[in-house]
């Protein structure tokens, strides 16, 4: 293997057949990171010792002729919101700049138990709040396809690492689109599973009723392999559901002929870039060619999704982020004289502008006199948005939309206008609110050679359908 561009199966079988070693793959990736990541900024922390220990374990298994586990020797990157024992975990924030977790996130532990080598932790918007990765307290990430543009956010580092061949796959987190939107901007696959499908134990909480963990990969099959590894009940997360995990890889090959694809006009309206519209419509034609039927559906409450999301997500965030008090594990401002002074100054110096803005909005929405008008109202509209999907899925097997209204925008283009930035998530927040699975897959390029992504949404726990349609398109395209 001369390059670092290969699939999970290719890596695993090359190590199994001893045509390469896990050690060689790890070293090749670190060399690539060394060479390219200076200008991209995908990684915040590398954990070479940990990766090489795992490489050694895998190489010894291969040498002894033992069958390698499903991700044996696969180099992976982990978004820096997932706790890694003994490895700094910052959530992209100064307030956790020196935090070294005493335990592992379940998803990370399951990846390693399946043989993956964790190369390092990837950059992200602070506390996963952002759509461009410009909110990282450390440095912005640049889009590997065009360094003047953003990689998307908040899992921008994970998407960029996979797009630039600095990891075979990565884990990201999605609260309002943070896996799918950067996948779309960087030209990779990003999959958010159903709420409750993957344990969030060890994920640094942003908005607990919306947070999901999922893979960013170069192929749909790799996404299926990673999901099969991390999905399933975890006693450490009471929101992880007790349902069997299907063999997502086996599901990929099922035929798509006769499937009904919902097309919702609300996702093709004002604000959608013409090139993106054209690419998604061509993809729908491709599915029709494969024997699928396009069926118009209506999701009438879609225009209310962004306001609903920004009330619920910020309200939950204001509660979740109250724990950063400068006492147990977060940054403490120097020279403070009283307890209250310590809380306030530590939080003022430790949090960035967007995080403060969201804590303020969420606190306001929950405060006396405003709770019914804002927070409760948003929870009711969340019911309406979820019903929209329930009704649509009575008629169709999946819904096809653009992932984002545009291709990647330039650094600085939206960073002074919070509302414009929020609207970058307009097609992705709905799935988080309803808790349904959604994948973004590449579906062409703009004239400027920027990747375009489309989104496939499925019913709750119908990951097999979403993956099957994505795989069929990928193979046909």
């Amino acid at each position, binding site marked *: 293997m001369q390059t670092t561009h290969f699939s999970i199966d290719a890596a695993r079988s090359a190590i199994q057949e001893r045509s390469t070693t896990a050690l060689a793959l790890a070293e090749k990736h670190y060399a690539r990171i060394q060479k390219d990541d200076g200008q991209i900024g995908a990684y915040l922390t590398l954990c070479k010792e940990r990766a090489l220990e795992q490489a050694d374990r895998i190489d010894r298994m291969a040498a002894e002729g033992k069958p390698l586990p499903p991700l044996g020797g696969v180099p992976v990157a982990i978004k820096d919101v997932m706790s890694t024992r003994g490895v700094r975990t910052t959530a992209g924030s100064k307030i956790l700049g*020196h*935090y*070294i977790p*005493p335990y592992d996130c379940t998803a990370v532990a399951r990846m390693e138990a399946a043989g993956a080598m964790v190369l390092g932790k990837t950059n992200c918007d602070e506390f996963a709040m952002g759509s461009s990765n410009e909110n990282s307290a450390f440095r912005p990430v640049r889009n590997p396809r065009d360094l003047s543009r953003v990689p998307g956010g908040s899992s921008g580092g994970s998407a960029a690492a996979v797009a630039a061949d600095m990891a075979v796959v990565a884990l990201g987190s999605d609260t309002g689109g943070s896996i799918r939107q950067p996948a779309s901007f960087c030209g990779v696959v990003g999959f958010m599973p*159903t*709420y*409750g*499908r993957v344990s969030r134990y060890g994920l640094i909480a942003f908005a607990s*009723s919306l947070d999901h963990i999922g893979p960013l990969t170069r192929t749909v099959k790799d996404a299926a392999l990673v999901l099969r590894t991390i999905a399933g*009940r975890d*006693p*450490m997360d*009471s*929101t992880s*559901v*007790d349902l069997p995990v299907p063999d997502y890889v086996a599901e990929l090959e099922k035929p798509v002929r006769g499937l009904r694809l919902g097309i919702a006009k609300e996702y093709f309206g004002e604000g959608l870039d013409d090139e993106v519209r054209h690419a998604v419509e061509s993809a729908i034609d491709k599915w029709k060619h494969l024997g699928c039927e396009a069926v118009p559906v209506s999701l009438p*409450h879609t*225009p*209310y999704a*962004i*306001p609903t999301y920004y*009330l619920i997500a910020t309200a939950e965030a204001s509660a979740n982020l*109250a724990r950063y008090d400068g*006492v*147990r*594990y*977060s940054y403490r401002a120097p020279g*403070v*004289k*009283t*307890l*209250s*002074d310590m*809380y*306030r100054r530590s*939080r*003022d110096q430790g*949090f960035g*502008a967007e995080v*403060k*803005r969201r*804590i*303020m*909005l969420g*606190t306001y929405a929950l*405060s006396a006199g405003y709770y019914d008008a804002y927070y*409760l*109202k*948003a*929870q*009711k*509209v*969340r*019911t*309406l948005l*979820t019903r929209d999907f329930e009704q649509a899925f009575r008629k169709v097997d999946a819904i096809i939309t653009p992932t984002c209204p545009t291709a990647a925008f330039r650094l600085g283009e939206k960073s002074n206008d919070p*509302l414009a930035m929020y609207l970058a998530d307009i097609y992705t927040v709905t799935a988080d609110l309803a*808790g349904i699975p959604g994948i973004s897959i590449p579906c062409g390029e703009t004239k400027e050679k920027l990747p375009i992504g489309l989104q496939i949404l499925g019913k*709750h*726990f119908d990951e097999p359908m979403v993956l099957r349609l994505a795989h069929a398109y990928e193979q046909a395209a």
Partner: protein
Amino acid sequence: MKVTEKDVAYVADLANLELSAEERTGMVRDLNSILDYIGRLNELDTSNVEPMAQVSDRYGVDESKQGSARFAYASREDIVEGLRKSLPQEVALENAPDADGTFFRVPKVIER
């Protein structure tokens, strides 16, 4: 203008945030612009709609069961160290900005 500078100061106080004068001005502008947009929710009549706090009380559970019986799988024995061992004291203190080996140390709480 829904939110005034006074509101911002009050909410910052609730959230334990110390905002500079400049930050407060920016916050008044940003919150008003966002709340303005959020105002469109009032176009919807939700008087007969149940609020939705969670996804997982509706999906992925045995719907033939009611209430907490749906989540029996998520309950556990109420015993010390039921799922994992508690962190040893020295590990729990490792990330503390200030500790004395036994306790977290903070500035004086009670003035007298």
